[in-house]
């Protein structure tokens, strides 16, 4: 057991986190990509695929989450694992939604290690109750790509849902009855998994544009349906009408304008939550007023960014995940709406990851502490309710990282002395915008100087914490148990924090 540079205990054999720049001291390592001469075999059932691929104990199986909560594949594979009595499996889905029925696999001890970038739903309780035999490793999107290419996360079989596949085994998510848009999270799996299986409900003769390349594909499984379209696209990508969210959004856009961020050629990313979209909308209005054209927006893409692309406010969209049907359609039709891999997006060892070109990223937080460390992995009770996704990747890469959040949710204060779980280190967080004030990370003296004398209500982050404590009181701390059940892996493969069992 040792402490990492943020003072968090690490008992995992992986190295402890020692700063977001530490990756620069390391060389990029890549295992060879899989055979590029694969001749895809077409089969008509997953059962048959299991037999042909000799799926057996101790294998690592991976999945992507582009079909989000509408995904049928991971549940079908889970059923087969139970039926066939396979055990000691390691699973590496890029995200886990509540609809993914992995609970029985954990209860029965079929799954040992679990690797993912986001986890929400009932699995949290099972994991915190020490039902998972191995470890939960929470990665970033870029970090997952890095782990796969380096061989740290060796995938035996990648089961990749694919809305359309052609006779050569090329695959696309751009159209079809289960269209989900870009398939960026799965490209590392395709390049480096020992076996690649595309699972589709639509086969066409030939695709002109595709992301999955047939030369890497070993097998295509045709099934009646790969997903429920209602669950594939998110229904929550609406600009908030909540006055608090709108105030935070307005303040965020104005402070960025004051800092001179919104200028010709600038680039940005926001989340797809209501406040993030409201911020993007405020920035859109400023861009129209000031006749500014940005270079690109990136990340999970919503119709709001599609509209900005159409309006000429951005030259390009770099998209790892389409959040709604308009984004899917735009990705299909508009050549400036470009699908990118998770590696190109945020792998620290890429020559030029997209996140490093971001001028600003606007992110959320479940908790932030007075050292600006951010938690988006656990709630204040210790339940796992999310994970980094691209949080730590973009926070590192962007020139300015802004956290937007109300000071309290359901009376639970946002700002803590110490966050329960560190997802993103405070050294990468620059500005916190809340409804009752704005805090600037003291590390960013340049921003503090630029904002001196401005009309913004800028206060030390501890003052904001104290203010909220006056309003809602200081909550009792809910303590974890002592036994580690998982680890938060920083994008460079070091351990930034440990997840513990519940008491």
């Amino acid at each position: 057991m040792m402490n990492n540079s943020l003072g968090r205990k690490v008992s995992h054999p992986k190295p402890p986190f020692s700063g977001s720049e530490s990756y620069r001291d390391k060389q990029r390592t890549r295992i060879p990509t899989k055979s590029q001469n694969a001749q895809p075999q077409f089969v008509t059932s997953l059962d048959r695929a299991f037999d042909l691929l000799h799926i057996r104990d101790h294998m690592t199986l991976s999945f992507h989450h582009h079909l989000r909560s509408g995904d049928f594949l991971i549940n079908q594979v889970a059923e087969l694992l139970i039926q066939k009595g396979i055990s000691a499996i390691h699973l590496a889905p890029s995200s886990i939604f509540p609809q993914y029925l992995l609970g029985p696999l954990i209860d029965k001890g079929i799954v040992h290690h679990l690797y993912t970038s986001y986890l929400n739903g009932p699995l949290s309780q099972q994991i915190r109750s020490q039902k998972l035999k191995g470890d939960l490793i929470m990665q970033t999107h870029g970090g997952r790509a890095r782990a796969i290419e380096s061989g740290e996360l060796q995938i035996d079989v990648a089961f990749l849902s694919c809305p359309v596949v052609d006779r050569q085994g090329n695959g696309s998510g751009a159209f079809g009855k289960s269209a989900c848009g870009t398939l960026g999270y799965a490209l590392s799996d395709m390049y480096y998994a020992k076996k690649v299986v595309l699972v589709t409900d639509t086969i066409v003769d030939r695709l002109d544009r595709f992301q999955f390349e047939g030369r890497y594909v070993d097998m295509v499984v045709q099934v009646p349906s790969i997903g429920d379209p209602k669950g594939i696209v998110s229904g929550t990508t609406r600009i908030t009408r909540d006055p608090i969210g709108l105030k935070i959004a307005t303040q965020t856009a104005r402070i960025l304008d004051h800092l001179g961020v919104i200028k010709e050629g600038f680039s940005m990313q926001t989340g797809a939550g209501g406040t993030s979209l409201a911020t993007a909308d405020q920035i859109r209005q400023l861009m129209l007023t000031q006749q500014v054209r940005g270079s690109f927006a990136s990340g999970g893409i919503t119709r709001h960014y599609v509209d900005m692309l159409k309006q000429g406010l951005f030259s390009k969209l770099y998209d790892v995940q389409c959040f709604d049907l308009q984004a899917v359609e735009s990705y299909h039709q508009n050549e400036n709406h470009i699908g990118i891999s998770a590696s190109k997006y945020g792998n620290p060892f890429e020559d030029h990851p997209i996140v490093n070109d971001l001028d600003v990223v606007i992110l959320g937080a479940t908790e932030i502490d007075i050292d600006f460390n951010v938690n988006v992995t656990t709630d204040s009770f210790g339940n796992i309710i999310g994970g980094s996704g691209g949080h730590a990747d973009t926070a590192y890469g962007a020139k300015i990282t802004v956290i937007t959040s109300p000071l309290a949710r359901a009376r639970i204060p946002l700002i803590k002395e110490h966050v329960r779980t560190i997802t993103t280190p405070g050294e990468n967080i620059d500005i916190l915008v809340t409804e009752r004030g704005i805090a600037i990370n003291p590390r960013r003296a340049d921003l503090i100087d630029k904002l001196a004398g401005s009309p913004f209500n800028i206060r030390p982050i501890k003052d904001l914490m104290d203010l909220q404590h006056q309003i809602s009181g200081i909550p009792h701390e809910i303590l974890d148990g002592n036994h580690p059940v998982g680890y938060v892996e920083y994008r460079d493969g070091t351990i930034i924090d440990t997840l513990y069992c519940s008491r």
Partner: protein
Amino acid sequence: MNRSYLFVPGNNPSMIQNADVFGADAVIFDLEDSVHVNEKDNARSLVRDYLATHPVLPKKIVIRMNAMNTPFYEADLNHLLSDRIDAILLPKARRDDIVLLTNIMKQICSKKRLIKPINIIALVDLASSLLEVESIVAIDGVEGVLFGAEDFASDMEIKRSETGEEIFYPRARIACACKAYGIEAIDTPYTDVLNDEGLIQDAQKAQGLGMTGKAAIHPRQIEAIHTVFSPSKDQILWARKVLQALKEAKDKGLGVFSLDGKMIDKPIIERAKTIIHKAHIYGSVTHDE
């Protein structure tokens, strides 16, 4: 001098606890129209407890009580009158009601040993109230009149329009009466909360008639209201030039002087001073500098 008065329903805890957040010059906690008859007691308790315990309160606190012809008003006053509040907004305000209210408030404030004076804002939303507005503004303790156009239009059996011609007369009459007594003339809220352009035009019309502020029914309306009811950049520049010219004239011992070819007399100087005074109060000087 308050530009914006934000209505907050008295039975909505999440809105109450954030009442200070939006920068309204004044917040009106509503016990009347936005609170269902079954919720009146709940709303009183919520607002009272909030005012007693919340560490951050709005700059100015107004309580909209229930009208004097309802069974709720006495309980409203008994529960809510405290040193935390600045004014009571009386709906369906008639002269005699205000006189009665003033007496009742005096008794309760005395009984509670309150220190801070609590004023009255008259909500003029009846034709009969409008006809009494000149005597209403003359009552000691009345600090302003809020015009309620929706109820007024209902009382007059006239339709409200986007352009607001039908409320030209009450707006002008209220503004004039309030100006005569140096109190605030607060315009009716603009009800289309998503129409920013309409709000600005509506506020400009009210401001152009002499209204000094405007009620808001959604926080997103506050900024537009502040913009309309604050001195503009051009006005501040003009006022500065006038006062600079005044200073130079005084230095030279001149009684009258001109600026840009126009004679500057006392009313113009007073206007310039008012603009600069307002600009200081609203922070416009700092912002524009």
